[in-house]
C-alpha cells in the first residue's frame, strides 16, 4: 500500500533548495531509502549546498528517518553547506527533543524564518 506520489517536492528560492515532504509519514524503510538517495543527489549538485527541509506535512516519523536526516546533515557539512529544518509539528518536535537531535539540527519555526537564517557564503 505504498503511496505512488514522489516523496519529495523540490523548488528553488535564490540559492536555497527548498524540499517539502509530500507524505504525512516518513516511516517505511524503502521510502526513507529513496528520500535519502534523492537528498544526497541534490546535495551533490552544488559545492556549498543550502537545503531547507519543510516538515509541514509530516505527522509521523521513525528512528530510521532520523538516521537518514543525520546522514544528510553530515553530507551537507562535508560540503560546507547549510541545512535548516522548518515547519515541524509539536508532536514531531518532541521526538527531536527526546533524542536531543534538536541540538544537532538547526530547527526554525517556519519556512520564512528558515529562509532568513541562511548565511551568505
Amino acid at each position, binding site marked *: 500500500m505504498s503511496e505512488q506520489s514522489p516523496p519529495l517536492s523540490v523548488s528553488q528560492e535564490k540559492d536555497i533548495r527548498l524540499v517539502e515532504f509530500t507524505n504525512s509519514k516518513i516511516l517505511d524503510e524503502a521510502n526513507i531509502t529513496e528520500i535519502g538517495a534523492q537528498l544526497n543527489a541534490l546535495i551533490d549538485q552544488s559545492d556549498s549546498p543550502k537545503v531547507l527541509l519543510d516538515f509541514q506535512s509530516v505527522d509521523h516519523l521513525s528512528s530510521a528517518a532520523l*538516521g537518514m536526516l543525520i546522514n544528510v546533515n553530515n553530507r551537507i557539512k562535508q560540503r560546507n553547506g547549510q541545512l535548516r529544518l522548518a515547519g515541524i509539528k509539536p508532536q514531531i518536535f518532541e521526538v527531536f527533543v*527526546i533524542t536531543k537531535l534538536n541540538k544537532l539540527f538547526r530547527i526554525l519555526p517556519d519556512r520564512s524564518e528558515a529562509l532568513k537564517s541562511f548565511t551568505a557564503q
Partner: protein
Amino acid sequence: MQIGGTNPQAGRSSTGHAKRRTGSGKGPAKRSASGDPAKLNGSAKVTVRTTIPSLYPAGQDVQNRILNAVEKIGFTPHSTFAIKLALEEAMINAIKHGNKLDPTKSVHIHAKVTPKVAEITIEDEGPGFDRAAVPDPTLEENREKCSGRGILLIESYMNSVKWSHNGRRLRMVKRNGEEPGVR
C-alpha cells in the same frame, strides 16, 4: 471519547481471542483481531494475537490492526501517537535487527487493548541483544551515529517497557492519557 452505542453485546463480543498464523506474508494479512472496534463500549477489550513472517508488509498490517483498536477504543491522540511510534520501532527491531529479514523466522505479537491500557508483546526468533550494551544516543559523542534511537523512543513514550528472553521479547505498556518523560 465515547465509543460504540447502545448495543449491550458489544463489550462481550469483543472479549474473545482469535489466533491464527499468517501464511505467505504477501500483502496484508487477514483480519484476526477479536471484536469489532466500531462496536466497542467502555468495558471493551480487543485482543490481537498473531504470528507473522519477517516481512515489512505483514508487520505493517498487524500495526494497523492494533492501532485501529487503539483509536476506536478511545485512546487520546497523544497516547495513540506514542503507541504508533513504539509499535513501528518495535516491529522494525524484530523484523530487521532481530530476525535479520529472514522470511523463515517469525515474529509473534500479542496485544491487549482496553480503554485504560494497551499491553503489547513482540517476540522475534533472532539471537537477542543486551539492552545495557546499547549506547545512549543522546550523549553528544553518539548524537551523529545512526543507531539506538528506536529503543530510546519506545522507552520514552511507553509507561512500562521490559526486555526478556535475552532481548528477544519486548513487553510494553501504554496507559491511556499518561505521558511519561517526554518533555
